[in-house]
């Protein structure tokens, strides 16, 4: 995890063991440790604060109910991410946003009818934004465009992109969270990257 508090990291297996045995304080410690991480990830997936807050709540309710099923074979954070991811997928299914989603294949090939992977040239690239003291500040218009583009991705590709490229997790861990193979994860990633690149090219050209 990139953002979780690290103070109790070495005690995590013990914390999990205590929480599993019914120690409420240990469970609260786990919640406090990971709530920001879960909320941040859920926000990155749904790009909206309200569903992110709902996902946060659903996730920890599920963690509480399923904690006995955690066997310690993977990291607790990996198991937690599997639950958040599942909640994001379920929320997506319930949401009307599903109807607004477009097939990556049709969107990516809309200009030429070619497979997006084969569309290498001519190049309209996404320029590097200037490095300024406000480098972390992405302007409102660009943010809206980034949100719009990522929300058009199918959920499995979106989550693959966020785990691997935004949160910087390894391909192996991202694959484990998505319960898929590394090659399948990389294939989703490739499609997501190409799609987002194309969407941003259009924005930069406009």
């Amino acid at each position, binding site marked *: 995890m990139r953002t979780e508090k690290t103070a109790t990291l070495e005690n995590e297996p013990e914390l999990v063991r205590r929480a599993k045995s019914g120690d*409420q304080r240990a*469970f*609260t410690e786990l*919640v406090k440790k990971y*709530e*920001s991480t879960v*909320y*941040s*990830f859920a*926000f*990155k997936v749904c790009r909206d*604060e309200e569903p992110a*807050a709902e996902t*946060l*709540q659903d996730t*920890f*309710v599920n963690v*509480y*109910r399923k904690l006995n099923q955690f066997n310690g074979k993977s990291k607790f954070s990996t198991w937690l991410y599997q639950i958040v991811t599942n909640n994001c997928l379920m929320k997506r299914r319930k949401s009307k946003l599903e109807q607004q989603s477009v097939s990556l294949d049709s969107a990516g090939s809309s200009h030429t009818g070619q497979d997006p*992977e*084969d569309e*290498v*040239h001519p*190049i309209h*690239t*996404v*320029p*590097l*934004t200037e490095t300024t003291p406000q*480098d*972390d500040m*992405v302007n409102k218009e*660009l*943010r809206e465009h*980034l949100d719009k583009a*990522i929300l058009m991705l199918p959920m499995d590709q979106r989550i693959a*992109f966020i785990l691997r*490229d*935004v949160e*910087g997790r390894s*391909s192996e861990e991202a694959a484990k969270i998505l319960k898929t193979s590394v090659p399948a994860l*990389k*294939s989703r*990633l*490739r499609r997501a*990257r*190409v799609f*987002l*690149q194309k969407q*941003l*090219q259009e924005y930069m050209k406009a």
Partner: protein
Amino acid sequence: MTMKKIKAIRCTEVAKYVCENLDEQIDSPLCRKIKKHLQECPDCAAQLRSLKNTVGLYRRYPAPALPADCHKNLMTALSAITRTR
């Protein structure tokens, strides 16, 4: 003159490989071939930069901090289920 049988790698192949393995630490014969191609093909190099810039924009997009009421609501919901156990 010695003729080396080096099969030229196609730009589409490079694009696919780069798209799948961006930021991966790989040292394979294929990877070295790709790197060489990227040094010699300005179009593919530009494509790679563009891809990195796209990822960079999302990486720099900050997620909001956890709102205080969100934490409070979560703790309330959890107390409710722990009481019923």
